[in-house]
């Protein structure tokens, strides 16, 4: 009996003495809220960045890419362990990971992956060669690895309902379009079973509701406005600036007048908007690509020059433009109105409106990759610019290409903005990447048993 007493005493003092430094625990359900309300589990276009990031995060739970990419644009192994290319980047051969399986139990073999990738890119020649995968493009494609790492190139099949079936850490259990998604851990995931048993996502939740749900313990992971994410109270995380906010001229509109557009660009005072309306999140921009990606944004100054703007407009008679914005964007209206105010000081009348044909639109565009060549191409496509032309892959090449796009094009960059999210204190291992990915397979819950 004495021994029992001693054990009890020792137990109490040990339990009280130690702080928690626990290994990841298995089990539990992670509750997530998102703004978007997707009707399908398909990736939306880049110019609806909230929807794009939400779906990219969802699909990344279900599937894997052939390769990943890190923030410095270095390719990382995923379903492919290694790769080789010819000297120009037209012919590629991938060595695939053994043993990866889709959630339906079928093998993620070279032929299965070839079929999926071939279906996504009709202009590529994709085929299996034994255990390897061959990809050939019509023209040299040095950024092919970055392309393969994009969310749109996730290796997933679809069942009859369009539900994605991938090789990722979670499988889809139930999808209620626009409302909710339930995912369960994939026991046979090639990267190891995730720590969580399940994830439940509720869609269509405004940011304010998400913040409340997090505070009240009804949600574990939510999105956040970047300015809120910089506070200390929330356990929050901001990505690098991976969204471009810009004014985009509508084809065949008055905004195609190059002098008018240049004058407007010079009239916009970005700094007060950045500090007051965006609460310092991100950075003012006159370039398409963010500085963290290129390092040359100083070559695209953001200073106001009202005098030069007026000089450009010397021959214009009462220039006037209409400016539209996305009503779902909580900051867009204020920024649009501020732009109108700046424009008026330069002698341009800008009418902000939610309806009717616009000469300009205030848009956000997701920058989906850290690879500058691919990012420039994707942005150009979204804002209806011609494909960028660059001789090589040096910083100077990208600068020249971007300069040419901006000089000839019809877009006025305004800001590069981060995306932010927050997690409750019961979530451990919460380490979103600088590119905004959530990596929920490595997350575990404090109260999981």
């Amino acid at each position, binding site marked *: *009996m004495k*021994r*029992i*007493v*001693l*054990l*009890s*005493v*020792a*137990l*109490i*003092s*040990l*339990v*009280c*003495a*130690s*702080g*928690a*430094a*626990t*290994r*990841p*625990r*298995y089990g539990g359900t992670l509750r997530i809220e998102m703004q978007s309300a997707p009707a399908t589990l398909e990736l939306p276009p880049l110019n609806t960045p909230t929807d794009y990031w939400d779906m990219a995060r969802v699909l990344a739970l279900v599937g894997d890419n052939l390769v990943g990419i890190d923030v410095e644009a270095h390719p990382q192994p995923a379903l492919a362990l290694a790769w080789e290319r010819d000297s120009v980047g037209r012919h590629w051969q991938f060595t695939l990971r053994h*043993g990866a399986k889709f959630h339906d139990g079928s093998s993620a073999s070279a032929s299965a992956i070839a079929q999926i990738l071939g279906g996504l890119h009709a202009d590529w020649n994709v085929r299996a060669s034994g255990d390897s995968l061959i990809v050939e493009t019509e023209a040299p494609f040095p950024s092919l690895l970055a392309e393969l790492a994009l969310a749109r190139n996730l290796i997933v099949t679809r069942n009859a309902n369009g539900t994605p079936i991938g090789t990722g850490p979670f499988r889809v259990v139930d999808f209620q379009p626009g409302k909710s998604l339930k995912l369960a851990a994939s*026991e*046979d*995931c*090639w*990267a*190891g*079973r*995730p*720590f969580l048993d399940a994830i439940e996502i509720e869609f269509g939740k405004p940011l304010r509701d998400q913040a409340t749900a997090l505070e009240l313990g009804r949600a574990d992971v939510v999105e956040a406005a970047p300015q809120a994410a910089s506070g200390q109270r929330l356990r929050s995380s901001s990505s690098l600036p991976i969204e471009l906010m810009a004014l985009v001229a509508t084809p065949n509109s008055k905004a195609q007048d190059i002098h008018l557009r240049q004058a407007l660009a010079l009239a916009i005072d970005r700094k007060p908007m950045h500090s007051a309306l965006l609460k310092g999140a991100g950075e003012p921009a006159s370039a398409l690509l963010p500085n963290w990606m290129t390092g040359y944004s100083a070559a695209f100054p953001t200073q106001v020059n009202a005098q030069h703007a007026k000089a450009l407009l010397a021959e214009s008679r009462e220039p006037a433009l209409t400016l539209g914005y996305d009503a779902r964007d909580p900051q867009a209206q204020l920024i649009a109105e501020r732009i109108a105010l700046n424009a008026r000081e330069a002698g341009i009348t800008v009418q902000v409106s939610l309806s009717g044909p616009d000469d300009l639109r205030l848009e956000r565009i997701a920058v989906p990759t850290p690879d500058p060549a691919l990012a420039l191409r994707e942005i150009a496509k979204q804002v209806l610019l011609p494909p960028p032309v660059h001789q090589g892959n040096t910083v100077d090449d990208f600068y020249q290409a971007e300069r040419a796009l901006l000089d000839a094009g019809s877009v006025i960059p305004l800001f590069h903005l981060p995306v932010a999210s927050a997690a409750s204190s019961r979530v451990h291992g919460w380490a979103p990447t600088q590119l905004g990915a959530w990596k929920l*397979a*490595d997350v575990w819950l404090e109260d999981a*048993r």
Partner: protein
Amino acid sequence: MPGPSENPRYNRRIRHMLARASSGLRIQFPHSLFLTLFRLAALLFGALLLPAASFASNLGDAARQLADRIAAISGPGAVALEVANRSSLDEKSVHEVRSALQAQLRVQGVRTVAAEQAMGSVNVVLSESLRDYVWTAEVSIGSDAARVVLVSLPREHSTVSLAPTQPITLKKSFLFAQEQPILDATMLDMPGGSRLLILDAARVATYRQQGGRWELETALPILPTRAFPRDTRGRLLLRRDHLFDVYLPGIFCRSSASAPLRLDCSLSDDPWPLTPDDSGSSNVNNPPVRAFFAPARNFFTGALSPGIGRISTLPAFYSAAPLPRPNYKLWVFAAVDGSIHLVDGITDQSMRGGHTGSDLAAVHSNCGLGTQLLISESGEPEGDTLRAYEIPDRDSVPVSSPLEFDGPITALWPDAALTSAVAIVKRSDTGWYEANRITVSCAN
């Protein structure tokens, strides 16, 4: 705290604190274990609260001391008092200090008034060093040169910190670092000198010292035929009849008996040894305890083979360590649910609701009771810490200061001789994994 003439002793009871708790326990226990646990919890709770009250009283005393010294310079009259806080004292404490200061000044005949009505000024700054609160008062009366008086009192944590008197020091010495997660590391004596063995999920690498650096000598691949868990764990154990064994989730590897090194791996759900010394049949009466590791998880299932006395099943656990006792071994288990289990072969005592580190290891030393329990503790967000504990006759006591690391501890295993442990840390700044040898030395 011991008196100046006494050498500090870690296992000596503080006379007027825990003695009553101990005697109360002895009388009450046989009637009810629950009651005993409750009393213990209450005592511990009281022990936590009492110092706070005592601290507030100390603040008041120090404030009164300072007021007396101020009054000795200023003499009776009216002064303008400013109190600035540049220490870690909270607002409430600062308010208490100011009130005590004003009250004691009044007792001394010094009134505090607005600057324009005052004959002089008193500027008090509440500051602090690492050890003490230091309060200064600059007293300026009329045209006299300003004079400064000060008082100090030990800071709150200093009064309870055992750091200066801890009898044991934990030391870490860096062994090796690499980008891939290190699961275990150990030194192996071989012809031509010692080798450092590093286990990761893909291989066992042997390194040899050359020119003060570890140079890769051989890399023995482990080709997993199944996916490893995300929090992969592994054990590298030296053996007598061959060089070493490797335990990974669902995989067992056995090395060759001599150079050239070879590694034969196979799927295996055999239990892992819980102690480095697994001499097997040489100790028939006290066979080494082994435990089954969950092949798709990061913990032991709780099934023991052989068991510890009558106990052969425990809840799933992360780590275990034996503490020698005169007639038995006391096993400490860090369970997956956060509880701690103490198993002596007859009983399995558990405690839930604590926040215990999941990695622990026992090491032998020439200090204290001769065996210390190293337990990882959270140091979020900067990094984890490691601390030595002992479980003497009835209390577990911390016997070392926390040893700090620059990131989370991802593995903690004792070495073959149980005289040191290897702690693997994922550095927060580089993301690399670092193997450190942890040794115990006597502070005195």
